[in-house]
């Protein structure tokens, strides 16, 4: 056949690798949406179940896409490509910078909405670079709550007080902590807004065929957090562990593990821990690292990770990312991260 090419080829065409993961979402007829935080950020492709990070894979060959005109035994090239788009499965994330924090202060919710102007829950879901499933999981993790169609995040103290009420109610009514009915619980929680209870259950219980089951390690962690937050000054690690043990509601016994609190505390001095929240940290990486080293001179990657991983938008290996702003020194078998 004769082969032609347009003199001016059309560069609006792109080739995307139909990887098995992507094909699967298509087989399931999932909705696919390209998303990005803003016009200068990475591109993600979100389906109902997966999030793909889109990268460009360049090659050195000439690839021409042609339309084949079988009748006239010719083909005409209309596009020429030096790259393919490569979708790689990553974990999605929700950008909550516009979502207000709701604490129980006596303020009417309608007034709160007027004051803070929260995004609609549907919009938040629509713009998040996360698949539907991932969104739901992370929304629960964040204590996200949908009230009258608005997206808000429940404040820490509110969550803890709801959680305490739920636990004491379960204990008081002798309900099975590993298989209880949410409806029955709801009925016995008189003063608690159902949305709040829903949020707290989404975070601290798993749904099983037999009913809801409390996630004890997670609950343990939250009480640890509460103790950490209650003293802002550094405390001795052993004193902290004792206070943590004492913090649980009566007749509710769970084990504790300081590793579960990584990302919520720093070690300003040896053997001392201090609550440290990532929420107020600067978004600029240089400033962020500066802050972190101000509070703690030397870090393990594991303990630093929760404070910096959100900045690694290019999905670099975290070790390499950290090295852009800090020194990562090998000391024996371990690595420590220090100021540069």
């Amino acid at each position, binding site marked *: 056949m004769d082969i032609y090419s347009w003199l001016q080829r059309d560069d609006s065409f792109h080739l995307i690798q139909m990887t098995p993961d992507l094909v699967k979402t298509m087989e399931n007829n999932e909705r696919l949406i*390209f998303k*990005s935080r*803003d016009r*200068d*950020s*990475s591109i993600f492709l979100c389906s109902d179940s997966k999030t793909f990070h889109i990268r*460009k894979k*360049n*090659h*050195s060959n000439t690839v021409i896409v042609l339309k084949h005109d079988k009748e006239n035994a010719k083909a005409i090239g209309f596009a020429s490509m030096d790259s393919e788009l490569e979708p790689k499965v990553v974990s999605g994330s929700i950008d909550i910078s516009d979502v207000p924090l709701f604490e129980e202060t006596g303020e009417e919710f309608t007034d709160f909405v007027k004051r803070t102007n929260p995004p609609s829950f549907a919009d938040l879901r629509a713009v998040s670079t996360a698949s539907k499933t991932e969104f739901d999981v992370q929304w629960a993790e964040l204590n996200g709550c949908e009230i009258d169609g608005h997206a808000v995040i429940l404040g820490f103290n509110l969550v803890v007080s709801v959680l305490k009420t739920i636990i004491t109610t379960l204990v008081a009514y002798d309900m099975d902590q590993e298989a209880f009915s949410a409806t029955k619980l709801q009925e016995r929680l008189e003063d608690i807004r159902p949305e709040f209870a829903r949020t707290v259950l989404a975070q601290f219980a798993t749904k099983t065929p037999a009913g809801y089951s409390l996630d004890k390690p997670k609950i343990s962690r939250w009480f640890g957090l509460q103790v950490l937050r209650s003293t802002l000054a550094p405390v001795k690690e052993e004193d902290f562990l004792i206070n943590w043990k004492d913090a649980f509601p009566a007749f509710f016994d769970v084990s504790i593990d300081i590793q579960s609190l990584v990302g919520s505390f720093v070690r300003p001095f040896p053997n001392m821990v201090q609550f440290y929240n990532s929420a107020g940290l600067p978004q600029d990486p240089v400033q962020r690292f500066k802050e972190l080293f101000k509070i703690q001179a030397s870090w393990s990657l594991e303990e630093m990770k929760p404070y910096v991983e959100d900045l690694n938008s290019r999905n670099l290996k975290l070790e390499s990312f950290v090295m852009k702003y800090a020194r990562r020194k090998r000391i024996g078998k371990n690595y420590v991260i220090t100021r540069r």
Partner: protein
Amino acid sequence: EIVEAPIKNNENRIWVKYHEGFSDAVKKNIRWSDLF
């Protein structure tokens, strides 16, 4: 290396300049504005 095949005597000849090797090793992040 250039394997030239002029079909006419002007600068608009049609020919393939062969590449000794092939590489598709480079993968890059792209921005929204690069694609849309």
